[in-house]
């Protein structure tokens, strides 16, 4: 008796685990930058979030009555998706975040945002971003207090975008590019994010359409705003600062929470870019990447519905 199964009988090598592993690889440069710039606190935050994510995932899968180490219809520890969520959340937290806040945010991301909605692939919102939003509401002061890299005693220092927004000061572009600025631990080094992001695009792990339109819209509006008001900051300042790069490569391209249609992904990216710009220029917050992506996450089912591709041969 030979194996029988429905055709096709060939499979690509890539599986969920290797997708997640590639995302982790893509995050390695920026993780290294986080540790380099923020030293021991960054190490604590990253380890805290990853370990909490793994433990929470294990516990929730147990509670759902499946073996966390086997392939289940809710996901598995082996697929490494919990590690990705934990690492992503760590990278968007400020260096001064308290250990209990990081832990709580991770538990919320995995247990509530991911598993209550069905588990791997079923979540509506990006778990890491939702975890951060939760912490912003729970600990508003802690989540908006940043400090400069390498500082021995913690002296709070506003992020470049906050400096620009509330006191019209600009940080040098070189610092923005390399990451020698205050900010969330994984958002400061544009260089390292670009390396990881381009790796993901080249390996075809992340789709290029979302970063393209997201970056494009921010670029276009910044150029227009720059011509209208030359004091609104240089082009590169807006493109390199805040969470734009990390968000567009690693958060907006999260497959579960972005549209499946090609046209939909252009729309999704453009929508993210537009909301970022609106919040940055006219909103109450200095930065809007988190809100923009979460907002577009909510619109994803709708976008999918209205951007259905035409069947082959259909007029």
């Amino acid at each position, binding site marked *: 008796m030979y194996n*029988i199964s429905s*055709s096709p009988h060939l499979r690509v090598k890539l599986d*969920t685990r290797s997708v997640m592993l590639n995302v982790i690889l893509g995050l390695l440069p920026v993780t290294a930058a986080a540790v380099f710039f923020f030293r021991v606190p960054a190490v604590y935050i990253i380890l805290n979030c990853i370990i909490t994510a793994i433990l929470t995932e294990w516990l929730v899968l147990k509670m759902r009555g499946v073996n966390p180490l086997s392939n289940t219809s809710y996901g598995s520890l082996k697929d490494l998706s919990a590690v990705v969520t934990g690492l992503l959340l760590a990278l968007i937290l400020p260096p001064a975040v308290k250990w209990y806040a990081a832990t709580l945010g991770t538990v919320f991301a995995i247990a509530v945002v991911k598993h209550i909605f069905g588990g791997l692939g079923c979540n509506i919102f990006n778990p890491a971003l939702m975890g951060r939003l939760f912490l912003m509401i729970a600990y508003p002061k802690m989540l908006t207090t940043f400090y400069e890299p390498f500082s021995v005693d913690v002296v709070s220092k506003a992020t470049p975008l906050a400096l620009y927004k509330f006191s019209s000061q600009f940080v040098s572009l070189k610092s923005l590019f390399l990451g020698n600025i205050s900010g969330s631990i994984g958002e400061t080094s544009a260089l390292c994010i670009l390396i990881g992001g381009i790796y993901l695009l080249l390996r075809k792990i992340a789709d290029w359409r979302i970063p393209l339109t997201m970056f494009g819209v921010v670029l276009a509006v910044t150029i227009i705003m720059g011509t209208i008001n030359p004091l609104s900051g240089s082009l590169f300042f807006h493109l390199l600062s805040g969470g734009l790069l990390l968000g567009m490569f690693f958060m907006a391209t999260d497959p579960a929470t972005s549209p499946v249609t090609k046209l939909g*992904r252009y729309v999704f990216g453009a929508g993210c870019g537009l909301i970022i710009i609106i919040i940055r220029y006219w909103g109450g917050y200095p930065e809007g990447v988190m809100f923009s992506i979460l907002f577009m996450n909510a619109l994803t089912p709708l976008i999918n519905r209205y951007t259905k*591709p035409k069947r082959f*041969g*259909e*007029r």
Partner: protein
Amino acid sequence: MIKLNEHKEPQHSVTSQRYLTPNKVTVFMSQHLGSPAELIVKPGDEILRGQIIAKTTGFVSANVHSPVTGKVLKVEYAKHPILKHAEAVIIGPDYTKPRVNFKPKDTIKFSKEEILNIIKESGIVGMGGATFPTHVKLMPKSPVDTLIINGSECEPYLATDCRVMLEYTNEILKGVEILAKLLDVKTVIFGIAENKPRAIKLFEETIENGKYDFPLVKIAELNAGYPQGGEKQLINIVTKRKVPPRGLPMDVGCVVHNVGTCLAVYDAVYKGKPFIERLVTFCGDALKEPKNVWVTIGTNLKELFDSNILEFKTAPKKIICGGPMMGIALDSLDYPIIKGSGGFVFLSHDEAEVPETPCLSCSRCVDVCPMNLLPNEFVRAVKAGEYELLEDMNLIDCMECGCCVYSCPAKIPVVHYVRMGKQFLRNHAVKEKK
């Protein structure tokens, strides 16, 4: 469209051999698309090679001939690679009797109707795998201006199209000549995949040097990947025309025939030989060496191993009738070769033996779907039992090419769910009628 690891060598370079003296043949009444042929012989009858043993029973149907001279042993339900069980005639060959040689016909004098009739009588069906009766395609209901000859063979492993193109170039072109005349087309386009450079070169040279009565001829080198040999995809690639959903090639003025079919048409018209033999590729890593073998229709697969035509290197884990993308996995070797058997792939490992994991909505299936459907939604609807959604999702337009399953990192057998959904829609339609 996707790029697959083609595994075409060494089959592409293995010269065909013959095994035309089977110990027993099992000939099915149904080995074509359409209604099964009607049996006209009974057990005990002495029959000749090439004699019609079952007649067409409708517009879309094909005659079935005896591939050997011998005696009808019995009529029974036998194991069929596609239909599971189907009515078949078991014939015991008698090689002591003189071999029937087919007489070439002086076809120059024949009218179009007579030639069409020869093709119909010869039981020729499409050799590309779908086994649609060829004569039906030669009677299009709307005007046709382009004849496309399919030499793409985009399924990995299979090599019969390549071999017939290399070994029977002149015969194929003669066959194409007949088809072009019957259809009265303005253009003939050969679509040959770039992985068969020798075939492309040979066709270019032969057409240039030979005297063929063709209208405008073009050779298109295909490089789009799998499934570029699908009828609608091929038409789109070589003519830029798009067959409408649920439409036929003739709706956009095209007819597509496989190169193997052209050879069968040549054999029928010029040699008077009905469709009783075909070239079959046997390959895969479980075989000692891959082979392209001319076999009589009805030869049991097992017999090819018993007579040492084929030998195993390692025990196979999976045996596929057809190519690995759309072929059917067989549970044993005990299956007869039918008109549509283009190849058998013997694999020592089974890539499909992987657990299904949750869908990530990564959209790879959507991106690769050649019909622009949303395979992820099919799976969701079938799993949730929301069958009424399937019609609006155009499930019927899925041709089950398998690109989505191949590309899926979550290893979801989408095509399996599609088949479940289609089965439901069929049952539902029957209920509605009642």
